């Protein structure tokens, strides 16, 4: 920052300096680097698995059932002789799909509703907030059971259950952060030069709350992956034989005594993935705080 009271003529404008500093900070934050690295790895393996896996993740091979890790099967095989590594890779597709789509549903409804609740005091705001409370109190697991019973268990029931369960979180985060911006003097200044509510939301509120929202999306992404694994484990989501970390975990239970590694691999994948996304979210929040203090 320039020294206070510097005469205007003495400003040394070093254009682009601020941008350099900004990019540098991202790479110096360990949470962002580690979290981002893990997330990149998961996303990469998900994309690669669409085109290529060492073996067909669904190919049964009874003669190689429950094989130990080896050069041909890096992480061994399961009870049907399916390659564990290939199944783990294919599972990341489902985790990412469910995570992304449920966060998308939650934000697509939650952010506009949160902005509306912040911008319109009074009746509209009250209605949105009461609906939020009701939704908040409704257990996501029950929603998943009901959806699975009504439409059959699939990854879409998981997406809907998780997506709807996270709507209130985004409404609250958006509204509380938007209110801070709406009560700021720069918004008052904008109203004084004739900006209307919608333009203020677009030009001032959204850019100022974007980082917070993105951090929240990353955190909820990690929770969505965890919830997806849990619902699959309970048989409310993806069903066998499709590979997902939750179904792999469920079928490995029977072999916990003899082949514990079958439980370890999907568990590690879930932990790493959840850790990656929540670290990334935390890192983004930390950077935002650092920026705010500067």
């Amino acid at each position, binding site marked *: 920052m320039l020294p206070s009271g510097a005469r*205007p003529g003495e400003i040394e404008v070093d254009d682009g300096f601020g941008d350099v500093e900004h990019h540098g900070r991202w790479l110096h934050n360990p949470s962002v680097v580690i979290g981002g690295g893990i997330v990149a790895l998961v996303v990469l393996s998900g994309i690669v698995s669409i085109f290529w896996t060492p073996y067909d993740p669904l190919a049964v091979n009874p003669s190689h059932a429950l094989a130990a890790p080896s050069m041909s099967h890096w992480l061994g095989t399961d009870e049907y002789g399916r390659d564990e590594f290939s199944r783990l890779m294919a599972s990341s597709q489902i985790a990412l799909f469910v995570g992304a789509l449920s966060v998308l549903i939650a934000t697509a409804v939650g952010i506009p509703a949160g902005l509306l609740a912040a911008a319109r005091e009074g009746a509209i705001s009250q209605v949105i907030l009461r609906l939020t409370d009701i939704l908040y109190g409704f257990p996501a697991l029950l929603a998943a059971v009901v959806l699975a019973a009504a439409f059959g268990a699939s990854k879409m029931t998981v997406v809907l259950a998780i997506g709807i369960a996270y709507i209130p979180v985004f409404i609250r985060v958006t509204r509380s952060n938007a209110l801070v911006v709406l009560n700021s*003097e720069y918004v008052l200044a904008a109203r004084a*030069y004739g900006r209307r509510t919608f333009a203020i939301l677009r030009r001032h509120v959204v850019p100022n709350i974007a980082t917070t929202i993105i951090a929240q999306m990353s955190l909820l992404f990690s929770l969505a992956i965890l919830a997806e694994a849990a619902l699959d484990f309970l048989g409310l989501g993806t069903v066998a034989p499709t590979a997902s970390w939750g179904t792999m975990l469920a079928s490995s239970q029977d072999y916990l005594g003899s082949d514990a590694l079958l439980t370890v691999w999907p568990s590690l994948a879930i932990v790493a993935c959840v850790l990656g996304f929540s670290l990334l979210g935390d890192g983004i929040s930390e950077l935002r705080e650092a920026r705010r203090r500067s």
Partner: protein
Amino acid sequence: MSDIPTFEVDSVTKVYQSRGRRGQAVEALRDISFTVAPGQSLGVVGESGSGKSTLSRLLLALERPTSGSVRYRGEVISGRRERDLRDFRRHVQIVFQDPMSSLDPRMRVHDLLAEPLRALHIDVDEGERVRELLASVEMPAAAARRYAYQFSGGQRQRIAIARALGPSPEVLIADEPVSALDVSVRAQILNLLTGLVRDFNLTMVFVSHDMAVVRHLCDSVVVLYRGRLVETGATEEVFEQPREDYTRELLAAAPRLRAQRGLTPSN
């Protein structure tokens, strides 16, 4: 034209009703009347909580009075719909106390200065106008590419002043424009304001708790105390022969006033 006052505040009362069943009403302003003539510099003085900021928001038609009316050049602006205030918004601009909170941290200076022009559909070459505005507050054109937080407090306030000048307003409302600044830069900003008021022939409403500054800048003054107008008149009269006890107290609370009439910073 000179007989139509720029602002005519007519027995304005503003009550804030806090929410909830047991909400108490807070009376921010009570039965305030005064006028601002074209080209005049009016000082609004009072301690914090006297209703000064409420008054500036009413003058900007950002809030509506509970009763009474505010007229701008003879037309009622209080309680009007936003779409009827287009011309008014061009004519009246504000500079706030704290330039850190009055400038959007996410916008570059160029956008900060161009926003009023876009909002008010003022048809000019943005880049050129921004350079002009920066020059008028003695800032280099290269500042346009930076963010407000990359400048010092005084420079930020220059940016805020440049933004207010963008739509070529007739009236500038300055709400404690130097109170948040270092003492060493206050005089610079005040001199800049005085110069701009002269060069652009601006009518100014200068809200402040600093009697010395008001005396230096304003030709008439309104004294507020707990939401009531206690005294009004030409600055010299009010300062030399205060009629009300409260005004006397305010003056007594600023002891360096008589010794030091200029605005040389006292550091």
